[in-house]
């Protein structure tokens, strides 16, 4: 699980061009969206949906469903685990 989270953080940094971030800067429970966390936006959400399908073979058909899944790296990892 912790390996998965590391991997996810790396992929997020790369895919979303989070140039100023290192893996160690992102806590498992940091909010991905919202100003208190990484402050990602809806375009990032679409990119994460693409990432989930490309890297993990998981389809998220309804962008609304994505909201709960994408709260934090932890929730993303939980979601991926549950689909494995």
């Amino acid at each position: 699980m912790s390996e998965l989270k590391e991997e996810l953080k790396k992929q997020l940094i790369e895919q979303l061009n989070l140039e100023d971030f290192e893996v160690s800067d992102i806590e498992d429970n940091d909010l991905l969206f919202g100003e208190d966390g990484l402050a990602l936006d809806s375009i990032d959400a679409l990119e994460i949906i693409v990432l989930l399908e490309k890297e993990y073979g998981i389809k998220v058909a309804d962008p609304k469903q994505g909201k709960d899944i994408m709260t934090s790296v932890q929730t993303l990892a939980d979601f991926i685990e549950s689909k494995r």
Partner: protein
Amino acid sequence: MDESIVVTGIGVVCSIGANVPECFNSLKDERAGIEAVQYLKTVHKERFKLGEVKRSNEELLQMLSLPATSADKYSRTALLAMLAGQEAMQMAEASNGAKRTGVVSSTTVGGMDVTEHKYLKDNPDNSYLQTHPCGDSTRQLANFIGATAYYTTLNTACSSGTNALIHGARLLRHGIVDRVVVGGVDALTMFTLNGFNSLMILDTEHCKPFDKNRKGLNLAEGAGYLVLEKMKDAKEYLCKVRGFANANDAYHQTASSPEGNGAYSSMLQALEMSGLSANDIDYVNVHGTGTNNNDLSEGVALNRLFGEGKVPHFSSTKSYTGHTLAAAAGIEAVFSVLAIQNDIVYPNLNFKEAIEDLDLVPNTKVIEGLGVNHVMSNSFGFGGNNSTVIFSK
């Protein structure tokens, strides 16, 4: 001195017809053009319905009396522009003679329909580099219809066509040209289909603008042009251009604000310019793409401008044509002119249930004889770009 600007010609090609009479008949007969993919080369052929112009490039060349050997010279975008532009220009010349004419066209992806098939291919044919720029289809159109006094292209995504009209009106007022062909064009491409698909805003079924259960838009292609002249120079005209405006939502790159600020502002400013009051408007041809976000935001703006329960007859003709991107405003401007000319209001196809909280019910059947004098047409695009135009009898 009367500086009023009038429409002296119209031309259109889209999924519901290859000229004005064909499109008007389809509108009256409630015949949509959104169908299974017939022409576009894409792996998503089975998945999406599109609003294709039901003519191959070879057929379009024939309709334009151009030799089949010149196929490489033109993108499909240019061919569609030339077909609709020619129709509009011929109508204006027939009633008002020849004049020093310019073209202000718009397109979002220009000659991408050619580029996407030749790019990265191992062949020495780089002719697509000529047809690729947005300005190419406009230059081709200007040369084809003999309107080279001035030509330019706007690309403000899906609001482009109305912005072309705004720039064109300015050129007329300052005497840069005496007649100007304004509107827009876009051909269907794998590029835009996949682009909108990646944004998850395409409906795999026939789109349902302003319906509670709307799922997205149907991508489409076409071209629509108006010919504008100063009223004092025109012997005959179809209707007046009464007001127009462009405003920016400044909210998000692709989404509209929940308050519909940009939409409200462009409608309000156009109304102010027209000198009309909100209850003078008889019909609104809404942007109404069928996406969750657009229709909600536009609906909120309509309620704000007209007052809840007082919104005039409105419909999205994208339920017939699909969303033709930069051509949408041009095509819908032609439909708006036709609504005034024929005193008719078009239905919003596929509507069943109103969006919760909005309580907005679009017009669902053809209504004639209502006394359509003033029509408002909205076009909104990426980058927060919002434009509105008002036509009057």
